[in-house]
């Protein structure tokens, strides 16, 4: 599946606000909200590089693709 079809998703309940994804996002897509929870602030800038997913210690941000179709 090509990168473009991947969708950036977050799971704010698991986010602990460490800021790692924000820091390492190359296109400055992400932000933390008042409660220190992750927010996809500028979704259109996302280049689907997966660096946020790679280093998020809490599995709270990830790129979802078709292979996860079976997930309900």
């Amino acid at each position, binding site marked *: 599946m090509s990168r473009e079809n991947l969708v950036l998703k977050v*799971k704010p*309940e*698991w986010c*602990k*606000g*460490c*800021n*790692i994804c924000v*820091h*390492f996002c190359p296109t400055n897509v992400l932000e933390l909200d008042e409660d220190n929870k992750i927010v996809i602030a500028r979704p259109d800038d996302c280049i689907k590089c997966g660096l946020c*997913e*790679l*280093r*998020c*210690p*809490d*599995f*709270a941000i*990830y790129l*979802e693709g078709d*292979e*996860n179709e079976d*997930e309900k």
Partner: protein
Amino acid sequence: MNKYVKKYLRNDKLAHMWCPGCGHGIIMHQIIKAIDNLGLDKDNICVVSGIGCSSRAPGYMDFDTLHTTHGRALAFATGIKLANPDMKVIVVSGDGDASAIGGNHLIHACRRNIDITTIVFNNTIYGMTGGQFSPTTATNDLASTAPYGSIDRPFDIAKLAAAAGASYSARSTVYHANNLEKLIEEALQVKGFSLVEAMSMCPTSYGKRNKKGTVSDMLEDYKETYININAFNKLPPEKREGKIEMGVFKNETYPEYTAEYQKLIDRLKGDK
């Protein structure tokens, strides 16, 4: 949900207990990715740990999982592996768990070259008990039991394991997460004792006391400090200062313990 998380973690146990910014989650992520890459059978994997923050990882992983006593993971794992050599046995351990109280089991597992893969979550501190120094804490670093700076010299766990006889020994960091995944994948394929030392930041008990800045700063530090062993070896001595090697330290083939034991059993059967 992240497909690996969905497939390999016990989702009802998440969010995990690790602090904000703790690197342990990143390591656990790479372990399950490596397992997935290799297509290992979930029902045939056993993950064993001792006690510590890192040692809580098995609780989140959807395999047969065993949270043992502090430092003893490898001894329990040795029993499991020898009794059931068909299982893939993985030990996850903290730097204290693996190299302080568990140091002897570590070097003996290396010596026997028993087919176990050990991932050391090395945050150079005792996280769970609140920040005492560990055998990997750098000299002069502060810790709750080294209030004036540690006077102990640190172990290099990856090198120690190599010297003690492990088939495979490597090191990476949570900054180099993709590389870490690759090394774990390699380690899991070794027939013999393999160890991957994964450097992981502990903001709560190590970073704060040692003024290491944000967790992102700590990750950037890893980027700066850790360089591939081959590149490192090419550096002139003065440039090595402040750098630490990462990559594969050893990858050799030796007789594996449980296989040798099986040969013994077969030999005795033949004798009858």
